[in-house]
Structure formats: C-alpha cells, structure tokens
C-alpha cells in the first residue's frame, strides 16, 4: 500500500516556464514533507521541506504547497531551467524515517 504517491512518472516543460510536480499521501500522521532531487548515478539531495503546520514554504525558485485537507502537496519551480532536469522524489516523515514516492522525472527543454 503506497502511502506517498506521485502519479506522474514524467513531466516535460519549456525553459522559463513553471514546473509543477504533485504528490498525494494517505497517512494523516505524517508531519513533515520533503522534496529530493536526484541526478543519474548520484544519490538524492535535499531540495525543500515543509512542516504540517504550514501551507507554503519558499526557497528561491522553489516553492512547496501543502493542502492537508486534500492530503496533497506540490512543488513549483519558477522559472524552470535545463539544470533542473532530474528525478524528483516526494517524501513524508512521521518520526524522521522517510517514506518516499516513486518519483517524477522532470525534463526542462531549452
């Protein structure tokens, strides 16, 4: 049973436009949500996080939105750059042990 779902395996956007990556979760006990970015042949790296007491967190071009009633979060990248092309994993944490989604492969075309 998948507790963290990323229903879009891939997303393609043009450079300069907005990228929106979505994530749904089922466990209402999750209290912290994170996004990780992964390039081929590398380990995932932390991108941005949000606590369940907030509904938005922004860091430069990256913004994460949390809708607790819908059990949904999204990552917005504005403007998208070719270097953002990677696999993005949504993760949720009840106690520091993370549960990961399957990932969404983002391709930003020049």
């Amino acid at each position, binding site marked *: 049973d998948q507790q963290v779902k990323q229903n879009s395996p891939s997303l393609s956007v043009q450079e300069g436009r907005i990228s929106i990556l979505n994530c749904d979760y089922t466990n209402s006990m999750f209290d912290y949500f*994170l996004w990780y970015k992964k390039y081929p042949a590398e*380990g995932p790296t932390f991108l941005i996080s949000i606590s369940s007491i907030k509904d938005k967190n922004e860091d430069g071009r990256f913004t994460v939105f949390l809708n607790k009633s819908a059990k949904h979060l999204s990552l917005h990248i504005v403007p998208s750059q070719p270097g953002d092309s990677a696999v993005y994993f949504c993760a949720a944490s009840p106690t*520091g*042990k993370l549960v*990961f989604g399957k990932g969404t492969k983002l391709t930003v075309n020049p």
Partner: protein
Amino acid sequence: NAGVTQTPKFHILKIGQSMTLQCTQDMNHNYMYWYRQDPGMGLKLIYYSVGAGITDKGEVPNGYNVSRSTTEDFPLRLELAAPSQTSVYFCASSTRGQQNTGELFFGEGSRLTVL
C-alpha cells in the same frame, strides 16, 4: 568534507554468495539508513540505526543484516544473494530523528547485480 561514502559503487554477485556494502559518514550523525531503489520505484527502507549499537528493521529487511559498532560506519551485509536483491543501494545519515527536519544526506549509491 566527504559526507556519506559508499563502497563499492558497482558489484556483480553470483546467486548464493555473500557480500558487505560499506557505508561511512564523517558528519557525526547519529541516524543512519540503508535504502534500496528498484527501477521505476521509490526508495524503500531496509534497516536503520539511531546510534552505535542500535539497529532496527525497515520496510524490506529480509535477506539483509546490519551492524553499527561506531557512529561513522553502518555496513549492510547480504547473505545468500538472490536475483531479487539486484538493485541500487543508498546509505544515508541524519541528525537526531525526533528533532531534525527529516533531511537525509545520501551517498552516491552502490549498484548491485545478482546473477
């Protein structure tokens, strides 16, 4: 600053053989984790440790063993390797789980093939 270092990066193993994946971190993190990632799938937790001498099972522990004799090292042992253990293995570390943001620092991964 090396962060989390995993060895080997690649390895081919025969069915029934055993091997150990090494992981060491130099950030003095108490928490360490082993994940596996199968193609098209997310990362699944195999084992984790909250400090030296303390380990616990994750979501998919069968076929694996771990030990944590020091803060820095967290080796993962595969006993009697099976083709289902063909995967990319990631070691990660973090600060104390209850107080941190959940952010993990990952190694570059170890790609293991069992034939």
